[in-house]
């Protein structure tokens, strides 16, 4: 008996790479696809999970060295803002207590549970008013993983209750927020039949409601001229490397020479040859970017397969549901707002970082391109549509600031070295974390890890 328990629960259903392969396989079979397609799809999903692990492993180790140098030198705790590393960090913290593979497999169960709850909420739309199905697999897996960690950290429950609670909370967030955005998304896209399902939905909603009071929709940036040379900033690899370069340069300026030498040594990042600091900074920022690119490559390999299943199941079971898709789907409708959002979001984040220094915060944030760009671009599109460019500029500046300060609050409560940093995870999710923490404290449950 023990032999089979171990085989099934630890070696198969507790191993993320096999679990994802099984999920994808079932998805293909449910959509009546040929076995050969189902097999190659699940093989790619399994390999994708392992590639993601390689990218994030390298990223977390190297970034960890940088943060250690910062902490040893200044006492400041650092945290990076990026989506997938946050999920991997959450998995890692669970696995440190529960054993290898647990964090990731609990997270995947939460993802599946939340998707089923989301479908249920839409099936009962007569009562729930929820009409949108989240199909953005790339953000769903991250959000489900983080929810799992939040619930487990503060309530310390076993797998089943942890997964159920996390799935319900996540599904409600998905369903409610993306349904609220159906109307403004249609206005932005001239009636396209989808809604935004991402991680700045609360801010999009606020932008829709507040922008008319802050500006005039007639000041539409899309009708104005803007230099095209700024577009290169949208290239995610270039921009990630750039943001990393600036952040790493700041950290190396702040830490002592001893710590810089330690970083260069074999105990640190193992680059004793790179004695020139400029080259060393370039190497660090490029190696971190390279790890993120590897990570994203892995994610893409299984997320495509996963989204295929989700979309097939949703189309079949709930043909009338509104599809919730990635925020970037609306970018082509307002390309100038996208650049405007990136610029003013950056201004806001810089102000936020400056604020941390002025208030001598015990936590420093290393900004990330994904939350900076995708959030502010999307928010700018909504704000510009309903209040013109001045409203968009104002709202994105404030949002950039909130992204930094809200993330500091989240990092404090979650004790992580990475955080999502997206607008919703600097606002409503901070509140959700605080609620779970309060419940845990009220019931006298020790923090699980």
């Amino acid at each position, binding site marked *: 008996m023990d032999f089979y328990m171990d085989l099934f629960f630890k070696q198969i259903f507790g191993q993320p790479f096999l679990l994802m392969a099984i999920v994808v396989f079932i998805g293909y079979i449910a959509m009546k696809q040929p076995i050969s397609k189902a097999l190659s799809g699940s093989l790619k999903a399994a390999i994708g999970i392992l590639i993601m692990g390689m990218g994030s492993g390298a990223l977390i180790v190297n970034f960890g060295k940088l943060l250690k140098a910062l902490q040893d030198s200044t006492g400041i705790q650092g945290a990076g803002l990026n989506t997938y590393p946050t999920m991997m960090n959450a998995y890692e913290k669970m696995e440190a207590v529960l054993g290898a593979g647990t964090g990731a497999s609990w997270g995947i169960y939460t993802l599946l549970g939340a998707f089923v709850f989301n479908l249920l909420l839409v099936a009962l739309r007569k009562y729930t008013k929820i009409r949108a199905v989240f*199909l*953005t*697999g*790339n*953000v769903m897996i991250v959000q489900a993983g983080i929810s799992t960690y939040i619930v487990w950290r503060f309530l310390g429950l076993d797998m089943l209750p942890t997964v159920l609670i996390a799935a319900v909370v996540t599904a409600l967030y998905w369903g409610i927020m993306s349904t609220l955005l159906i109307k403004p998304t249609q206005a932005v*896209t001239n009636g*396209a039949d*989808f809604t935004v399902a*991402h991680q700045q939905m609360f801010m999009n909603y606020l932008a829709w409601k507040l922008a008319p009071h802050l500006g005039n929709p007639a000041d539409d940036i899309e009708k104005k001229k803007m230099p095209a040379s700024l*577009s*290169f900033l*949208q*290239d*995610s*690899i*270039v921009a990630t490397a750039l943001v990393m370069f600036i952040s790493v340069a700041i950290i190396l300026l702040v830490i002592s020479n001893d710590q810089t030498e330690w970083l260069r040594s074999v105990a640190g990042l193992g680059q004793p040859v790179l004695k020139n600091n400029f080259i060393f900074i370039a190497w660090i920022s490029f190696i971190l970017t390279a790890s993120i*690119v590897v990570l*994203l490559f892995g*994610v*893409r390999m299984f*997320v*495509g397969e996963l*989204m*295929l299943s989700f*979309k097939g199941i949703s189309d079949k079971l709930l043909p009338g549901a509104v*599809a919730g*898709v*990635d*925020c*970037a*789907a609306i*970018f*082509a*409708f307002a*390309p100038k707002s996208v650049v405007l959002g990136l610029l003013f979001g950056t201004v806001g984040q810089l102000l936020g970082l400056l604020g941390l220094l002025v208030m001598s915060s015990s936590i420093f944030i290393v900004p990330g391109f*994904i939350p900076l760009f*995708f959030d502010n671009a999307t928010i700018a599109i909504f704000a510009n549509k309903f209040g013109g460019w001045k409203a968009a500029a104002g709202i994105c500046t404030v949002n950039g600031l909130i992204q930094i300060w809200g993330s500091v609050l989240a990092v404090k409560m979650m004790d992580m070295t990475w955080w999502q940093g997206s607008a919703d995870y600097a606002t409503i999710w901070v509140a959700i974390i605080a609620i779970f923490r309060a419940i845990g404290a009220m019931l006298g449950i020790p923090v699980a890890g």
Partner: protein
Amino acid sequence: MVNILCVCGNGMGTSTILKINIQKICVENKVDAGVESCSFSEAMTYLPSIDIVITSPEWAEMLPPSRATVATVKNLIDTAAVSKALLDIVREKFPDEINV
């Protein structure tokens, strides 16, 4: 086989949905196609082996010159518009890849 590449900024959300939709369009219209998706940054690596690129107008402008035919669609989620843009090119340039 005609090789199709779906390109969006991060190569995650939009291009994945686009890939799923295009695979469906190709099956329905009996087009013998291989479909891949990627981010703008990675597009360069794929381009030499690609026949048709589908992306939004902004990314299309920034793509380097290649032998691929570039189709732009503003709403990449709009299956009807994607279908029209893609099938127009296939019928004009790759008529042999349609199995009647």
